[in-house]
């Protein structure tokens, strides 16, 4: 099988899986119990938190375990919105955020009476810093911008946003870093909250992480016990939390080498795609090497996807989290591309596990598929 959908999820790292199974067999105890077994589980959990903090160069108490990236996004955005609503009820985000940010903002607008500005993007999926500057108002309390877009791979100007927000110390800055972790160098200075997910870096599903700077207060969404500093009640999913440290360590191991390798693969993939007539590359500008978005003009993307699936090649049409909704993806609509381009978009996402032969096979099969199936629109 040729798996080219690493942006949707990644296979488990063998070491992570082995450690996780061993932990599960050994530790079923509640990490908050005060007998020695509970203390031991709690110690390992806290050690994991400490190691994660070290790897991300932040403090231990700034790391909050969650169940996924979406939860981390919800926790940060609603938490900040509710906490600081007395300062104002205006939020700025972009029009191409992941559904967990987009829908959260929609809810804040529709149910809780917030005002949200959705920054427009250019045809490669990048916001313009001037648009942001113009949008900041006296009652703005939060800017939430994703680091790497999950459908087109565009990298947003996070450093420039930090600079703009230096003049607005009361505006909190949240960054969805789910697609960025392990892919590009992450610097959390100047950021108040950041969301991460384990399953995008060969870790477990059901495992996410929120960075929350000490100076930022959140209203908790799950009220309950003392777990996660009172920000997320519920019995700790201890073994999952414990193994996240190893997951991240392995993901960051040989970082430069992996980055170079994927970047080389990416160039090769794009070069090969460009040789195919009817294929247009939608990805451009400052962009992650892991995601390539392209359109096969005149073809229905689902048909290509399933035709490739028959040949044991897995790619996707858009974000897996909103794959079962309307015709054209919300993100693609926002790029203001010609209709036939937006309609026929496909996403290939690679990782350091991808081999060059797999790209060759994909290109070969894609050509075959395009020759054999009928154009539908």
């Amino acid at each position, binding site marked *: 099988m040729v798996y080219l959908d690493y942006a949707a999820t990644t296979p488990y790292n063998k070491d992570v899986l082995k*450690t996780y199974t061993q*932990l599960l067999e050994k530790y079923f105890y509640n990490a908050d119990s*005060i*007998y*020695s077994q509970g*203390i031991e589980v709690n*110690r*390992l959990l806290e*050690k*994991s938190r400490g*190691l994660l903090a070290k790897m991300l160069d932040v403090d231990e108490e700034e790391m909050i375990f969650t169940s996924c990236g979406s939860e981390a996004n919800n926790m940060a955005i609603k938490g900040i919105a509710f906490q600081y609503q007395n300062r104002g009820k205006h939020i700025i985000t972009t029009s191409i955020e992941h559904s967990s940010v987009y829908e959260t903002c929609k809810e804040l607008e529709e149910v809780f009476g917030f005002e949200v500005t959705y920054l427009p993007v250019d045809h490669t999926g990048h916001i313009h810093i001037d648009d942001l500057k113009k949008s900041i108002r006296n009652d703005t309390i939060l800017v939430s911008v994703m680091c790497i877009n999950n459908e087109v791979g565009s990298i947003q100007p996070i450093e420039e946003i930090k600079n703009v927000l230096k003049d607005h110390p009361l505006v909190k800055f949240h960054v969805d870093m789910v697609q960025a972790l392990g892919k590009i160098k992450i610097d959390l200075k100047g950021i108040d909250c950041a969301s991460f997910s384990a399953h995008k870096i060969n870790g477990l599903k059901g495992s996410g992480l929120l960075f929350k700077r000490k100076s930022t207060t959140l209203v908790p969404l799950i009220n309950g016990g003392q777990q996660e500093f009172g920000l997320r009640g519920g019995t700790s999913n201890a073994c999952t939390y*414990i*193994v996240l*440290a*190893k997951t991240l*360590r392995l993901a960051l191991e040989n970082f430069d080498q992996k980055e170079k390798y994927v970047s080389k693969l990416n160039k090769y993939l794009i070069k090969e795609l460009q040789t195919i007539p009817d294929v247009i590359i939608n990805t451009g500008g400052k962009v992650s090497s892991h995601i390539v978005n392209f359109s096969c003009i005149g073809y229905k993307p689902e048909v290509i996807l399933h035709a490739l699936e028959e040949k044991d090649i897995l790619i996707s049409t858009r974000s897996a989290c909103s794959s079962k909704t309307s015709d054209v993806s919300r993100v693609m609509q926002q790029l203001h591309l010609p209709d036939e381009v937006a309609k026929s978009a496909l996403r290939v996402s690679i990782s350091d596990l991808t081999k060059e032969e797999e790209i060759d096979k994909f290109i070969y099969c894609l050509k075959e598929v395009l020759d054999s199936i009928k154009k539908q629109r």
Partner: protein
Amino acid sequence: MEANYIVVRFGELTTKGKNRKLFTQKLLKNAKEILFEFPQLQYQLQYDRLYIYLNGANHLLVNEKLKTVFGIHSFSNAYKFEKDLDVVKDAIAKMINEDTKTTFKINTKRSDKTFPKKSQDINREIAGHVFHHVDRQLKVDVHHPEMLVTVEIRHDAIYVMTNVIKGAGGYPVGIGGKALLMLSGGIDSPVAGYLTLKRGVDIECVHFAAPPYTNEFAREKVFDLVDKLRHYTHGQITVHVVNFTKLQLAVYDHCDESYAMTVMRRMMYRIGEKLAIKNHCLALVNGESIGQVASQTLDSMNVINQVISIPVLRPVLCLDKLEIIDIAQKIDTYDISIRPHEDCCTIFTPKAPATKPKSYKAEAFEATFDYETYVNECVENVETIVVDANYKNDEEIF
């Protein structure tokens, strides 16, 4: 830039005449134990120096570990170069570039007089090169430089040494015999242990636990403290945990409340002495500091100390609490010590303990029950655990 080797200078032990060799060899042995996680290191012991060849080990990591080895006065990272001044100049510029300090001095010693340039000229030449190749503002300060770079031109090669890093001082641990540290889990006793180790005396520890009145957290706290202290030894410390519950309850049954604490401390000393003799320890050590609590008035110490005959060392006797805390923070035990878990001294605190106890009264209370059986039972049933690098070693999980 990675250093090639580390030059280690000895401390006070240089004054020790004929025993010198014993001292330096003990120091070498301790250093090897502390640095055991770097198997690639090679050691060369000379009369007045110890050379540690790094063979690729990260010098900063080794530096950190080396700072806890007693008997080391100071050490420096050293680099070996071929006899090409241009190579040396570039390397020094790079080293200074990696640092953040703002004043420096180059000090050249030319023992190879065939080398064509003179020391003073070399100093100037290297400093000039540094000015041109370092991005930040720099000054030469020949009297009090923040960075002192020593360049030694010898026959075989050019050696460059950077700043002198202060060592832990003191004597190599083990050279002064062994003592038994009474470790409660508080702030003072780990500091007392540290200071004892500093003078070359090895330690074992005794901890009095009173389960179920004291809990697992209190026990873990003690082991965590020992885990910090062991870095100042040869890498491991033996801990004896005494189950004190039965004896402690008996004391409270048979003594007036005001004397319970005094008698309890006398029992601890008795057990401590027996354990010390059994384990070849020549003294007891504890964290008593005059007047700090009721058991630490001079009157109390007098009455409590009477029951044993081996010496009791009290390294923090005359330190103020804040001075003790300073040391605790330096050796990283403070945060562990302040964890809020009860130890056996705090579980049944009397309202008004005697601050001026009399020994005849203590003896009278003790005569009302057969304490010796309890004491012997405590000694026999002691639980002995060695804390070493395996303690809380969970590398596999992480």
